[in-house]
């Protein structure tokens, strides 16, 4: 549903000032970018191999 041009942004359904809503949004996006970077980094690194213990050693 399109919002009126002067509609207040909302933080989880609660009217909030534009500055605070924008800050939360900004923080979420920053967090997401780093999360994706760390995830891709982990996926591209080799899986650690756990070798079985050799009882003869």
């Amino acid at each position: 549903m399109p919002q009126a041009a002067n509609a207040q942004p909302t933080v989880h359904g609660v009217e909030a000032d534009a500055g605070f809503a924008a800050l939360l949004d900004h923080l979420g996006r920053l967090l997401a970018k780093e999360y994706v970077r760390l995830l891709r980094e982990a996926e591209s690194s080799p899986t650690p191999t756990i070798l079985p213990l050799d009882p003869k050693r």
Partner: protein
Amino acid sequence: MSSLTLTQAARVLGVPQHRLIHLCEQNVVMPEVRDARGRGSSRTFSRRNLFEFAVALEMRRSALPLSLARTVLGVLRSFESEVRRQIADFVLPDSLMAARGPRVLIVILNGTRLYFVLQGAAAASAVFGGIDVSVVKGGRSVARSKAKLGALPPIDTKREFATARTRTEINLSQIARDLKNLDQ
């Protein structure tokens, strides 16, 4: 379980229904499937809602205010939509359980400053924040400037965490895992 009634959600989370109703009425959690519309109607919740309830309830157990839970869930919604732009099937809470994915935590220092922490498998933690969540005039929280919300330099992180009088830590990834176990 794609959608849950209030009764089912309360049973899964092990809390009385009125606690979940309170979180809905305070606009901390908004039913995604169906909201109550007058007398006799019922709310229906998504799995994401279930996760949101679990996060909010955990914060309440630590005596953190509802306004802070609302703030955290607001950031998580933005986080999810941004991650989904790059990973189309990313969805909360299930995607937080990726075996090699970074752990997501929130940390509140001195009861007033909110940080988000990402812990990768090998890399050092990345800390984002912090929002001053002490209630100010009008009941709203305030944040530092936008420029300071990004990843904190390690030296700043170390100083802020080392000099905190109290530190409350909530592991969002673990809450997601625990929910998975409850489902089974």
